[in-house]
């Protein structure tokens, strides 16, 4: 079996699958990181991803442009992020309940809109998926090049966003404001930062990213929409944020480990690995759990996470 695993085709296929599986999770997790660092725990992102995949597909289908599809998916996600903002910031709702409410709402809403717009179809409408772009020269790198540098534009942009986000949090007053309202909202308020404004922006951006992650499923992977495109990717994104200690590069690591464990699991099964398939299916979740337990110990999130800000309490 080992000689079957240590072949170039196996490894490139494994890498490609890892990237495919991790990208939508990574996009959503990076967005959720913004919301959580500003103090808003948005548990609705699984639902927002579902809406994003539907809105993205509908947008691309009716305009004929994948770009406009991604824009529609992102806008729908941003709108729902804003809705989460209204519930948790303005109405000061319990964020766990509000997030779950958004999730339930989105599940039904996506089915409802899909049936309302496309009707009962015998042939499911589809669009052609986002093409891969091969980066010249870099794709000549042995082993890795063919996979890593032959991806669609969204994968490149997502990986490019990671250092940008790191820069925002480390070097700009924007990032500082987000961390301030997430850690010490009263101090931030006293320093003249509008807590609710910063939180609105962060949670709306988080929704936008989740919408993009969803649109990635329908536009970059499948070219169609069904109600079961995202089966738990949004929840995985929330886990990855915690695992990633709310920091961009760590989040990439978390998504990478989950993607790799999943990609490996499918391949081991096909190689007739001598374990029951149910056990192999558990591998990605066991690996994630073990790693969260090991690395997550003594880990503290933003101090004001999930706490509505009350100025009058002072």
């Amino acid at each position, binding site marked *: 079996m080992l000689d079957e695993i240590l072949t170039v085709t196996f490894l490139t296929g494994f890498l490609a699958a890892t990237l*495919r599986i991790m990208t939508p999770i990574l996009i959503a997790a990076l967005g959720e990181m913004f919301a959580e660092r500003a103090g808003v725990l948005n548990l609705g992102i699984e639902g927002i991803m579902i809406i994003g995949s539907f809105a993205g597909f509908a947008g691309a289908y009716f305009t004929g442009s994948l770009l406009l599809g991604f824009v529609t998916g992102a806008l729908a996600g941003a709108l729902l992020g804003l809705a989460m903002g209204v*519930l948790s910031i303005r109405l000061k709702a319990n964020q766990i309940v509000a997030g779950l409410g958004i999730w339930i709402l989105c599940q*039904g809403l996506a089915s409802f809109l899909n049936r309302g717009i496309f009707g009962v179809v015998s042939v499911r409408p589809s669009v052609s998926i986002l093409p891969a772009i091969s980066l010249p020269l870099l794709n000549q790198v042995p082993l890795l090049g063919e996979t890593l540098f032959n991806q669609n534009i969204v994968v490149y942009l997502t990986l490019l966003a990671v250092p940008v986000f790191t820069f925002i949090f480390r070097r700009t007053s924007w990032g500082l404001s987000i961390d301030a309202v997430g850690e010490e909202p009263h101090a931030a308020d006293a320093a003249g930062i509008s807590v609710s404004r910063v939180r609105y922006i962060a949670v709306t951006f988080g929704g936008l990213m989740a919408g993009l992650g969803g649109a990635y499923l329908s536009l970059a992977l*499948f070219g169609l929409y*069904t109600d079961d495109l995202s089966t738990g990717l949004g929840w995985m994104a929330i886990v990855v944020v915690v695992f990633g200690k709310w920091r961009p590069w760590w989040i990439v690591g978390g998504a990478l480990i989950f993607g790799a464990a999943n990609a490996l699991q499918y391949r081991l099964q096909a190689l007739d690995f001598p374990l029951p398939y149910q056990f192999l299916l558990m591998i990605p979740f066991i690996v994630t759990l073990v790693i969260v337990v090991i690395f997550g110990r003594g880990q503290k999130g933003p101090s004001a996470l999930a706490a509505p800000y009350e100025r009058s309490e002072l």
Partner: protein
Amino acid sequence: MYKKRALIVPLVLALALVIGQPLAMTAQEDETDAEPIRVALVLDNAIDDQGWNQAGYEGLLAIEEQFENVEIAFSEEIPIPDMERALRDYASQGYDFIILHSSIAKDAAINTATDYPEIMFLWTDGDTTMDNLAVIRPLAHEASYLAGLIAGSMTETGIIGMVGGIDIPSTHRSYEGFVMGVAEVNADAQVLVNWIGSFLDVSAGNEAAMSQVEAGADIIFGNGDGQNIGVLRACEETETLCIGAVRDQYDVAPSVVLTSVGWGFETGIPLVFGDYLEGKFEGQFYEINLEEGADLMPYHENEELIPEEVRELVEEKRQEIIDGDLEIPVIDFAEEMEEEEETD
């Protein structure tokens, strides 16, 4: 002011729950004076999922089409834990014939049938019958065997893939039949097996099929339900020939779907209903065989891709099965377990 705000939150959440409810049921009435016979169908996914649920819905439509004075209704996208509630809703509304289209909602089937002995229930691909609970048992392993003949004859790499949903008796039966067909025409061929542990997960179906293509599979049998959309899309993407399941899935990926293994719900459901109308309904297993619709689906435009001698072989073996000259053994997962216990 603050109190008013506090009210809005539960209101929004209540709205979320209302909209989040499964899509509304619809009813269509025939215009005759006689009291219509009311038939209801409960499904766990969308009626146009191009797979399992659409097959059930087509069975319901066939009832409406083939019989006079029938009123149909259905509830789709009902999660498994809610199935019993949906069944009881229809039962308490006085529906005469209620179809449960879900293999795994066993408690819902038995509890409701026990409490409403005067109503007839039909449970597709179930495993228990009662006086008023009949079960459709598709014998899709026969068509799967025929599909195996095609895959075994046509593979060039000698590697064939099978992506299954959950390993339950009916899918396992199909898998064993398929492997038997492959082995009969191509003893050296290797069948890669992936069970993804879900009947819904499109991404998992897609990834599993992709991993098999990379491992060299040039024909893939998608043995399942909703996740088959992902399997067939992966095949279309990688230009790998494939075989669908449950109903004719040619439309999902016309460029690569050679045929599909039908499970015969479109024909089996009206068949049982006809028995019911004639007073012949019994709480029994209705086995749907090749002739009754659990058959190999049309090749459509891809007929020419399959060599003529292979098509002839399939036709020949099909006839042998129908004539009773060839028997494809039913190997259910459960039976295999029992055998193991016995040998222990």
